[in-house]
């Protein structure tokens, strides 16, 4: 026996990694390639749009690269975790993100760009707990809705109520910052989880009606900051104030449109160099892609994001447990919403909302959260489906 045992040698690491059913082979390679492509493009665009801050500088490129490296490590770590085990951690992750959101409201919080959304860590680093809150909410709602009622494939009523409660608390804290954009993403995450989770259509209709009433109340009782109202007004009619609120949408249209079919080349965008579009390394980074890489480049970005979404949906469909399917589906809705709103606002079909473009925009916490979400998707792919 011992002699036999000695004969069976363990395959080499390379062999193991490339074997037919190895972990590496079973990862969703296409999605990872797409994400990598988006990260590379994002790095180039951050370079192009921030190098002008000081003569001879490389802007925020180095920091952005560091963020991406950390994000990739986080992604890899999350990939190794069985998502079913994550169900157990979900409440903890959620509570930690709530604490983070709470801390923002204490004197530890800091205001950057008009949003009180940050906790400064020193050394020029800061975290934005609201980005982590997206992950936390995805997990906790999926956990609650994944356990169907006896003899049914619909979630239990109590769980639905708990899910809505969790979402309301998170969104409430985010609105206190105030960060309307993130709150909307959280709402989309909640809504998509409820719909995918199999909540009855009439319940969904009721919730939609309540939300609509709430939104109406917000407008009617002037609970929004004036700039937020102004953004919607400017979206409806950008000529209202072309120098003020409408300025952003006008300038981003000009930047993207002037890229034409082939673009002006990396670093060749005059609008980018002149920094006519505000926040062009974060929320408006798509304008840099549009100007410097043209229609071909900006469509490539959209396509790569589309690959991530479609592959994510495939993972959700193939997953055999409810939790995995819900997490994957909710993440796709999160990314899909953010992509559509972000690109849409730069080309004038969506109102201006402070949301970053996933994997492309500069921003540490957002990069971490996005890559953690990719890790979740990969983990679900690895373990959520039978091998045939």
């Amino acid at each position, binding site marked *: 026996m011992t002699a036999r045992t000695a004969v069976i040698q363990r395959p080499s690491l390379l062999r193991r990694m490339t074997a037919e059913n190895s972990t590496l082979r079973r990862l969703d390679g296409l999605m990872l390639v797409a994400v990598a492509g988006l990260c590379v493009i994002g790095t180039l665009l951050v370079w192009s749009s921030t190098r*002008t801050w000081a003569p001879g500088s490389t802007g925020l490129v180095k920091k952005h690269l560091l963020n991406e490296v950390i994000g990739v490590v986080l992604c890899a770590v999350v990939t190794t975790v069985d998502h079913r085990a994550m169900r157990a951690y979900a409440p903890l992750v959620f509570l930690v993100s709530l604490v983070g959101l709470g801390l923002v409201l204490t004197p530890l919080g800091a205001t950057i760009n008009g949003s009180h959304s940050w906790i400064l860590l020193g050394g020029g680093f800061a975290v934005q707990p609201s980005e982590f809150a997206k992950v936390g909410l995805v997990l906790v709602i999926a956990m609650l809705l994944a356990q169907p009622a006896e003899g049914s*494939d*619909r979630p239990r009523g109590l769980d639905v109520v708990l899910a809505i409660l969790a979402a309301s608390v998170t969104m409430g804290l985010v609105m206190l910052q105030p960060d309307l954009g993130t709150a909307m993403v959280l709402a989309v995450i909640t809504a*998509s989880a409820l*719909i*995918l*989770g*199999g909540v009855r259509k009439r319940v969904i209709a009721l919730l939609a009606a309540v939300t609509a009433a709430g939104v109406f109340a917000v407008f009617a009782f002037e609970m929004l900051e004036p700039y937020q109202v102004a953004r919607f007004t400017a979206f409806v009619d950008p000529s209202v104030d072309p120098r003020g609120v409408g300025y952003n949408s006008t*300038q981003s*249209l*000009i*930047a*993207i*449109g*002037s*890229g*034409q*079919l082939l673009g002006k080349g990396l670093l060749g965008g*005059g*609008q980018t*160099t*002149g*920094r*006519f579009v505000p926040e062009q390394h974060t929320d408006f980074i798509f304008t840099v892609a*549009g100007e410097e890489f*043209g*229609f071909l480049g*900006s*469509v490539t970005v*959209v*396509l790569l*994001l*589309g690959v991530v*979404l*479609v592959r994510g*949906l495939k993972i*959700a*469909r193939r997953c*055999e447990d*409810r939790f995995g*399917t*819900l997490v994957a*589906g909710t993440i*796709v*809705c999160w990314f*899909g919403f953010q992509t*559509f709103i972000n*690109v*849409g606002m730069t*080309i*004038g*079909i969506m109102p201006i909302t402070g949301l970053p473009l996933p994997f492309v925009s500069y921003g540490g916490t957002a990069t971490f959260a996005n890559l953690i979400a990719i890790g979740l998707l990969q983990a679900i792919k690895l373990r959520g489906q039978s091998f045939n």
Partner: protein
Amino acid sequence: MMRMRARLLVLQVLVLALLVLLTVRLWQVQVVRGHEFVTRATETRTRTVIVPAVRGQILDSSGRPLVRNKTALVVSVDRAMLVRMPDGGVKVLRKLSAVLGRPVSDLQQRITPCGPGVGKPCWTGSPYQPVPLDEKVDPRKALQILERQEEFPGVTAEIHSVRQYPGGRAGAQMLGYLQPVTEQELEQREGLKASFSGVDLAGRDGLEYVYDDALRGKAGRRTVQVDRMGKALGVEHQVAPVAGDHLVTSIDSRIQAVTERALTKAMKSAPSADGGAAVVLDARTGRVVALASAPSYDPEIWAGGISARGYQWLLSEKSGKPLVSRAINGQFAPGSTFKISSVAAMLRAGYPLNGNYPCPGSVNVGGRAFNNFRGIPLGTLSLHTALVKSCDTIFYKAAYEQYLKDGGRHPKKPPKEVFANMARAFGFGRPTGVDLPGESAGRIPDRAWKKDLWNRTSAVSCERSRKGYPEVKDRARAEFLKRLALENCTEGFLLRPGDSANFSIGQGDVLVTPMQLARAYLALVSDGKLRSPRIAWAQVRPDGKVVRTFPVPVVGKLPISEKERLYIKNALSQVAADGTAAGAFAGFPMDKVRVGGKTGTAEVWGKKDTSWFASFAPTKNPQYVVVAMVSQGGMGSQTAAPAVREIYEGIYGIKRPAAVPGGKLVTKLPTFRPDGTVAPG
């Protein structure tokens, strides 16, 4: 799980639909409407700054500058930059006002763009163009600004070129001046908007105005890329300015100087003189050699923008309105200088060239006695002597006879009007067409003019004939005026016998400009052809290439035979030697340079006489036609003739060095070196 998968499928369709929507919209924005946004991007991203072209020089016939450029330190302010400062740039302007020694309010007004409610001195140029605030900055002050740039953000001191006049006041009205273009002009003159900035100036009078297009050159444009804050990032595109062409004139600056001096002296010699002009033409070409008008002014007053007070002074009675060129705008009765036309008219009317004509002290014209000068009878004269001695009665009689022939008070239709038509043939009554703006036409008071005048004035004179002149204290005068008003009312449309008599000796309502008289004499003494005098001779590119030369157009021919023309010229040749100007030319070496001409003393009601002398020299094959006029200067022989004598003395070097060697004019264009400077000799 089935329900979940179904909903995921719906989600997939939704995702794909949104991706398609984004792609379609991107296609629309970037490909379909791409060029539209390229245009808008260029508009927002770039600012065009106009680089002014160096204006061409105005040169005399030998290439000496009459108007040239000198470099000056110009302090300019970038208004766009000041506006963005928290205090609107008030602090910077305050500091600048301390350095330049000018009030802040003045500086502020100068950089404010012109518009409704914003009057001069406001800024007419582009808001992105630096506004020049001071064009005559002491280099030390400019250095203060340049060395402490951090204290003067948005303020620059640059070298610009500004006009300089080596001749000082000489020919100021002829040369003209420059002023910033007004918004109105930009609208009116097509193409101006593209090539003009507020830094650029446009010619406003004289040669600067007439040859503005040639002199101006083409402004360059520098397209500067700017960022959101308007900070220049770099030059995107540059078109170098094309320097303006030089204008070579036929003016001889030496003769111009002589002429100015003679005119100034003549003005001083006549205590009441209030204006004068002297015209020197080249009798062989019809070009203008010198053109002076008094009083004159220093054109440097325009540099750096004229002050409101300076401008008012130029237009005021006190300064004698030095902007007005008496040479082309001074309209005066020509007196006896006009007789060249009247003699020619007599010949056309059939009076014999070699006839003898009695010159009594007085003749009866329509019941009124018209007298010779001081009523002195001169016996029986030939036309030659009539001109030399300036007999008036011969012309009165002839003019009255022609008047009667035309039907007198009941004119035939059409009347022949021999005297008026001959005056027209000599070029009177219409602008000479000299290359200067705003020339006056003068006036020939024929029957049509009388009628036209009556149409315009009869209502007033008829009322006066009834009501009289109660405001006039002198009762005899008031009575006279009332009678005059009655006459004007009832028969003012009629040419009276006296009108025709006065006209024949250049008195009464006839008006001519010195330029008109000069070209009439030029036609008479050269070849009988009437020309439109020219000051411009050639347009020369900065590299020395002649772009074009300006010919002297022939615009008419005197309707007299060569024999008659030479007869009259011959008679005039004796005036300075033996005739009415003999006194003024006493001691002049007629054997060296024989001067011919005609004096004129024109009466002006309520003022001193206008003094004229129209001349030419040498009498054989004349080179020069010189006309001098001094308003309120007295008799022609007293003031104008001595001035003309002095001009000839200067030209030919009598009792002094000659202005031009041998009295000969330059006949060849100056040669330019490729760098644009004038080659000597």
